[in-house]
């Protein structure tokens, strides 16, 4: 019993001595290397524990805040939806703005026949329901000064001409319609011909004299001959030249610059006074006969 008590006192004395030794060594600056060694040894464990503790903590926090988060999620979804709608609206406005800017630039660059005060912007409201005809309808009419036979353009070139007018709307015969015929000229070679539409929505330039040289890539413009359209309006580009031995004239396939399937905003050239188109056609037919 006495031996056991004296051994316990010895242990306590030893611990106190080690403690005091440690304090003394620390005060003297000898403990820092020991601390660094211990710190290095335990840091991986610390790190692992830290991660686990963090995860557990966050799980507890998440479960505690789940209702708040759900409510927040609903709010954010509603906000995202409204922003999406707003974004779509702004994109549409941006696109429309871009179209108007292009048209404005076009009118500025072509002051010889277009004046802002004498052209009206029309928006397409629909196309012909039949596969056999190529008409587009615009939301400007007689009230805005639109009249029959006035040319219709976009910033990319000639669309066609007005064939019927209502108070607030007008019907436009597109270039690609088989009933459409426009006097045209090749920009480089100055060769003239007639651009006609076809039932499949394609364009060709006909009545090109056989000895004239035309090449794919040539630009086709309105010639202004006949007085139905102003000159220098872009129609398209030659893609292929067709000439058979028995033909009196050459024919060129034309790729129109205007995308007739995606017409949105157009200009009606109210300043241009065209000559009666139908009378012109009749005259041409009589001459042919």
């Amino acid at each position, binding site marked *: 019993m006495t031996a056991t008590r004296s051994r316990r006192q010895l242990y306590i004395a030893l611990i106190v001595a080690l403690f005091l030794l440690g304090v003394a060594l620390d005060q003297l600056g000898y403990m820092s290397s020991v601390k660094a060694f211990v710190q290095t040894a335990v840091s991986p464990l610390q790190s692992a524990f830290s991660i686990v503790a963090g995860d557990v903590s966050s799980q507890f926090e998440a479960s505690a805040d789940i209702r708040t988060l759900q409510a927040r999620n609903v709010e954010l979804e509603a906000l995202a939806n409204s922003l999406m709608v707003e974004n779509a609206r702004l994109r549409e406005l941006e696109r429309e703005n871009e179209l108007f800017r292009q048209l404005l630039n076009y009118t500025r660059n072509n002051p010889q026949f277009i004046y802002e005060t004498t052209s009206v912007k029309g928006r397409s409201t*629909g196309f012909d*329901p039949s*596969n056999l005809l190529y008409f587009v309808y615009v939301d400007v009419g007689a009230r805005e000064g639109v009249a029959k036979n006035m040319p219709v353009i976009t910033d990319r070139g000639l669309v066609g001409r007005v064939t019927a007018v209502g108070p607030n709307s007008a019907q436009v015969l597109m270039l690609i319609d088989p009933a459409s015929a426009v006097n045209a000229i090749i920009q480089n070679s100055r060769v003239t011909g007639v651009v006609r539409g076809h039932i499949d929505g394609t364009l060709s330039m006909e009545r090109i004299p056989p000895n004239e040289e035309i090449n794919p890539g040539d630009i086709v413009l309105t010639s202004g001959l006949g007085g139905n359209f102003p000159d220098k309006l872009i129609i398209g580009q030659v893609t292929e030249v067709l000439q058979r031995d028995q033909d009196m004239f050459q024919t060129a396939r034309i790729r129109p610059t205007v995308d007739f399937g995606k017409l949105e905003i157009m200009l009606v050239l109210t300043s241009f006074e065209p000559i009666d188109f139908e009378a012109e056609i009749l005259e041409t037919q009589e001459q042919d006969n």
Partner: protein
Amino acid sequence: MLLIGAALLQTTLSPYIKITNVHPDLVLILVIAWTILRGLEDGLVWAFIGGLSLDFVSGAPFGVFTLTMLLSTLTAGLFHGRVVGSSIVLPLGLAFPLSLLFNVLALLFLNLLGRPVVWIDAFSNVLFPVALYNTGVMMLLFPLLYLLNRWLTPQQISF
């Protein structure tokens, strides 16, 4: 309302539902399907309204589509009552020739009224492709009209 809606859809959606530069004749398909299901009398009423709707929104001389629609419907009326059950074979079989008839007649009238027509180009690039497209759309629309017809005329139960 259905026919006027279809005519308006044809004018507004046509650029977006084009395949090989042609779009389906929705009004014609509806009229043919209805005629096969309901008979000539109902079909002619639909043809008249549908044709007028097209004429009002088209650049063609007024009456061309009403007349061609009525003529196509008269032909479709010959086949009324020959639908067995919900069979779609007959409407599909008729969609192609009747589409062709409708567009050929319309083009013929337009030609007679002064529009230039190159018939070979018309057949190869427009008339045949449209007839095929209409046949495909008939496959989708006929079952819906069949159900509409059944809903409008419930079967009478006899004891």
